């Protein structure tokens, strides 16, 4: 059984009393100990999907309109709030894009890590502090005994993201959701944080759901990849298979727009036009207005997922055609 199984998850935003759908029924699974990458450009619904899984949409203008989120066999959407909170921060933990603002400025980092431990484990304050120091050491923060009493503003962005990771790992989660964990960091720090996540995964055996707009990051770290476009998953495959045979024209466009340093090119490829507005009415395939090889059927019928191989699916009427 998969650790996390998301089925037909649909999410809508309440705008002026109306529900505007933004995620149109996504399904995917994360296996225990594996890494699933979700990639897509800004506004495609990947962050909303991760917040929905974590249960952080409550109280906002965003509603889950249908679907189910099975974690460890329990449906997170029907679980009573209290039992759900017992999972949040314990078996399922999350790190965010903005390490600069994701820590509470008025508490010491040690207290913030300990808070998570005290919430879910029956330990004393002194034991929680010891564990916090141990976690800071685990995420390779130098001088953890000293740093445990630092305030967030005394740490760099990379260090703060390490603290966030330490906090997420506090109760040995089975699943770590990482929403653009390296986007706000500079490139060398990015690589170190990704390496750290991989090493920690090897040490703890946790599964990771990595959300990113950066195919390079995904290629380096993931076992499986799901590509999202306009609130839908348009291609899923094991990472090595996806990067060798991209079936969906959007995935290919995304790949072609990555700058490669050893290739001399004048201009980067860009996908023409823009992502449709959220809630815009679109017949047929959502990508057809921007697709170079759209045919009449593409604007009429929304394609279903077609198997390119037993483990590789693409929502395209003509998957894998005219491969570059």
């Amino acid at each position, binding site marked *: 059984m998969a650790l996390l199984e998301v089925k037909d998850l649909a999410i809508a935003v309440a705008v002026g009393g109306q529900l505007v759908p933004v995620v149109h029924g996504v399904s995917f699974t994360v296996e225990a100990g594996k890494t699933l990458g979700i990639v897509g450009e800004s506004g495609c619904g990947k962050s909303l999907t991760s917040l929905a899984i974590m249960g952080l949409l409550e109280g906002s203008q965003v509603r889950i309109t249908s679907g189910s989120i099975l974690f460890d066999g329990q449906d997170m959407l029907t679980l009573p709030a209290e039992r759900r*909170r017992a999972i949040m921060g314990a078996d399922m933990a999350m790190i965010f894009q903005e390490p600069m603002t994701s820590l509470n400025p008025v508490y010491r980092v040690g207290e913030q890590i300990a808070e998570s431990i005290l919430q879910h484990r029956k330990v004393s304050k002194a034991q929680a502090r010891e564990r916090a120091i141990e976690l800071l050491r685990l995420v390779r923060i130098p001088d953890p005994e000293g740093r445990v009493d630092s305030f967030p503003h005394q740490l760099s962005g990379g260090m703060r993201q390490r603290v966030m990771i330490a906090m997420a790992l506090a109760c040995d989660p089975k699943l770590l959701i990482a929403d653009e964990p390296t986007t706000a960091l500079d490139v060398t720090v990015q690589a170190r944080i990704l390496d750290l996540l991989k090493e920690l995964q090897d040490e703890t055996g946790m599964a990771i759901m990595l959300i990113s707009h950066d195919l390079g990051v995904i290629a380096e770290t993931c076992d499986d990849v799901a590509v999202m476009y306009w609130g839908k998953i348009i291609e899923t495959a094991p990472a090595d298979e996806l990067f060798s045979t991209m079936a969906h024209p959007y995935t290919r466009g995304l790949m072609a727009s990555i700058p490669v340093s050893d290739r001399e090119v004048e201009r980067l490829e860009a996908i023409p036009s823009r992502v449709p507005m959220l809630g815009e009415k679109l017949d047929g395939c959502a990508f057809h207005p921007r697709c170079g090889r759209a045919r009449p059927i593409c604007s009429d019928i929304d394609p279903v997922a077609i198997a390119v191989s037993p483990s590789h699916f693409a929502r395209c009427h003509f998957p894998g055609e005219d491969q570059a």
Partner: protein
Amino acid sequence: MLAYTFKRLLALVPTLLAASVLVFLFVHLIPGDPAAILLGDSATPEDVARLSREMGLDRPIYVQYFIWLGNALQGDFGTSVFFRTPVMEVIAGGAETSILLALLTMVWIILLGIPIGVLSATRHGTWVDQLASGGAMLFASVPTFWLGLYLILIFAVWLGWFPSSGFPSIHDEGGLLNLRYLLLPSMTLAAPNAALIIRLVRASMLDVQREDHVRTARAKGLHPARVAIKHVFRNALISVAAAFGFTFAALISEAVVTETVFSLPGVGRLVVQSILRRDYPVIQGVILVIVCLYMVINLIVDLAYAWLDPRVSLK
């Protein structure tokens, strides 16, 4: 922290000097000769001149200032023209009422302002919030004297629950029960300020609620009440603390009105009466004491601010 406090206290000296000049001069701008008023209508010009000389009012104004300042530094604000007793004693006589009134008012402001503000923010958009916000808006706009008169009318005249005016000392017969005399005045005084704190707590909490670190706190699986108090409110408190300095300034001017409406023997009413009596030494003394108090309160607010927000460094 100690060095900073000491430095701030030193910095109060020039400010106080400037304030003393202003206080001294402002009083001399008020028309009317105190010697003439004191002696009444039947006094001859010779009598007035003699009293003026006795009081030092015939000397150049800067000499008057330095004499006054020199004495004030030794805690001697002169003798009240009206009471014929030292100004410090006159002020001390009103201090008990004013201090107790201020304390009771602060208790109301904190007991009402903070919980209602928190409730309003956590129930944002519901009828609870609308009721609290609407009520706060109403009480923030109602003039103090009007509210005071209505409270007297309802609770003292119609219902007869509380006394309408005056305040016997808590050392007199009745002891602490005499505090009931201050209940209506303190509520009158607290209403606009508590309303301000309600709106401020609500607004800052709603601001903080949107911050990323609150999402982190929720992701830990904390109970929503714990997130609201330990993470949202604790951060919102930083801007609320800053507002307490202003609240205190507002309290002083509103206390003048309130003490007059409720005929309380406090420092506020003393100011008003002293102005009417042209009692220069008392006016100067009271205002200087209020200025000192205000500066100390603001220093405390600044220190509290630094204590609440670790990002503020005391240098």
